[in-house]
């Protein structure tokens, strides 16, 4: 039997098994801590920092998706510091990328009273849609750099290693080797990256075309050539 840890979250004292994250422990207490980059089937990297909470004795805020509980821990999930950090992160995100298809993040923006226009004249990460294969498109102006696609392409699922990063800092992007089109990489078009993308940056080509107003028949006829080329290979 796993050791039980006793801790306090927002005044509630609870017991959870050792090794539980603060985020999961909070769920047990009925407290939903928001997340953006976190995905149950991906390695947690604690990079969006939306899930930060205040832990007594800790100098800085703590990312609840990775921090493990310990005995006697006192956690506060809704303090002014926490709310200010979440709000500012959301405001900076809204000033950087196109969140029009990121419903969950839109919901957080509303919940935390974040203003999408808090940072006027901010440089946005705007890029052209990459349409280089018959399976899916990549619209990196919607990419929030949650890393999920890179992770499922690598050790978290597929072991294909077709995509990684280019650039650094604010200029970071998801990229293939020298930006090669996906068919020229190790990509096997498994679709896992599309499945975990939370913002519509990765989207099935068919869905993309439907949204652009093409009818299913038009899509069939327009993509016939691409399908044939693949079959001949």
């Amino acid at each position, binding site marked *: 039997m796993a050791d039980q840890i006793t801790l306090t979250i927002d005044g509630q004292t609870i017991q959870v098994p050792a090794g539980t994250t603060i985020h999961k422990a909070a769920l047990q207490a009925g407290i939903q801590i928001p997340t953006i980059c976190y995905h149950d089937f991906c390695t947690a990297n*604690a*990079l*969006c*920092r939306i899930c930060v909470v205040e832990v007594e004795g800790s100098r800085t805020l703590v990312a609840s998706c990775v921090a493990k509980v310990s005995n006697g821990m006192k956690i506060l999930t809704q303090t002014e510091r926490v709310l200010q950090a979440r709000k500012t992160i959301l405001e900076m995100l809204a000033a950087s990328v196109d969140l029009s298809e990121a419903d969950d993040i839109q919901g957080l923006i509303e919940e935390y009273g974040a203003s999408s226009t808090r940072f006027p004249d901010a440089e946005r990460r705007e890029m052209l849609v990459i349409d280089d294969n018959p399976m899916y498109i990549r619209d990196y102006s919607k990419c929030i750099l949650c890393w999920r696609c890179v992770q499922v392409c690598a050790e978290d699922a597929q072991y294909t290693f077709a995509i*990684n990063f280019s650039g650094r800092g604010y200029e970071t992007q998801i*990229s293939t080797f020298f930006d090669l089109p996906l068919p020229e990489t*190790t990509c096997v078009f498994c679709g896992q990256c599309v499945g975990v993308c939370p913002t519509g940056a990765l989207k099935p080509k068919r869905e993309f075309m439907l949204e652009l107003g093409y009818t299913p028949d038009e899509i069939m006829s327009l993509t016939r050539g691409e399908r044939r080329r693949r079959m001949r290979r």
Partner: protein
Amino acid sequence: MDEINLNQLKPRLDELAGLGRTALLPAIHAVQELYGYAHPEALKEVGRVLNVPLADIYGVVNFYTLFYAEPVGKTIIHVCGDPACAMAGADSVLKMANQKVEQRILDGQLMETITVERSACLGLCEHAPAMLVQGAAVGQASQRIWEEMAEGRSRRPHSIVGGDISILTANCGHGHTTYLNEFKARGGYAGLRRAIKMDPADVIEMVKASGLVGRGGAAFPTGAKWEGAAKAAADQKYVVVNADEAEPGTFKDRVMMEDDPHRILEGLIIAAYAIGASKGYWYIRGEYAYSFQVVGKAIKEAKAAGILGEDILGTGFNFDVEVRRGAGAYICGEETALFESIEGKRGFPRVKPPFPTTSGLFGMPTVINNVETLANIPFILEHGAKTYRYYGTEKSPGPKLFCVSGDVVRPGLYEVPFGVSMRHLIFGLAGGMREGRTFKAALVGGAAGAFTNQEHLDTRLSFEDLRSVGLPLGSGVITVFDDTRIMKEILLRLTHFFAEESCGKCYPCQMGTQRQYEIMQRIAEGKPLPDDINRLTQVGWTMTDASLCGLGQTAASAILSAIKIWPELFVAERA
């Protein structure tokens, strides 16, 4: 794409083949030496030999500023753009270099031979304005003629060393490197000889008793760190020298490595003995090409003399060390990002815990110490903790190196006991302000530090005294500004630095450093928006409070301190 001959690369890769991914940075360095840039065909060969996915290799090339995914000039000139050099005229040097290159193109001379880039702090602040020509340091660049600099004919600047005491710097500032014979003649390796006869636990006790804390900026007790790694159960443990010195204004580690490499090596071997490590890495920032060369030579000497390698000094203790070059990334000074870099990855900091002492390099217990920290170890072991504590204050024992640069008469590296005043350092040792100028401010702790004005000139330089007035000691940097300086301009450079150097992993820092730079641009131009001071403050606190690593947590420190001292700078001037 131009054709290349891969035959030249093969023997170089053969040497690295068995190492796998950890050899990725050395392999990319080799590719660039041979083909001028990170040529895709050569990278494919690297991927095949080291078994690293191509997308990952491209990710690594893109992360480090000294790696080039596109063809560049045969000669690359880096002109420093950070405060100390900028104040000494680095912008004019950069402009002049660019004009000269343009002129060569107009004259029809080999147009692709020179590439000029603005660079982050090169760690040559005492020689400002500084630049690197194909990796070779050039100081006082504004006073040199172009031909001399561009052809690499100017001499490497000598270190400028002074202070009240010379324990760490006893062999520094003499105009040459203290190699093994001289080091031994001056009593070197006596600390190791004593340590290696002691029980490792007693060595750790002695370091704990000395009160030594890390000199890289975080000030973690060195003895406790060693003890943690010593107690961790593992077949393999590592010791790592953090020589990725890149904090703007810091150059102490470079001077120590160039002038007295064996003192650091001695400290490293003692650390390895204390925790039971058989392998060490010495990670030197990519811009320090000369340090890399000197340290490599010192290690060879030590091996030949039986001080390093198998059966050290006939005691049966085995320890070897490998020198690694960084490739242009401030973040790799963060310990876990440095591990990632040694492992052949982008320098993304890891989530902590686990801490390095239990899960560090390659997931094994690791002690990582700054160059200056290790340089303290031989003295402690030779003379004992009590003698060591004779220097400094009760809570900050020992000697400390300070890098003083900017508007002082004698910029340089100064060794003092903890507890002297900032006034003594700036006005006594560094000669004070130039004629006709008065002191305006000092940036304490580098870009990640905080500003202070004359109010704290008499504060004692110790961890406890500085903390009590809200200043960080950091790695011991003091950049001085006189009354002629436009602080907005300095602040803009600091925000530019962090926007360039953020790794991009966590949201607060990835976007916050960019937003901070954008707002500061408006302010520097004299056109702030009404609420910009609050925007800066909120971005600043969010980075400080919510970022994943120390870089993000300190990226707003200087700005937030400036808002306190000069709030008027951040609001629109009244018409």
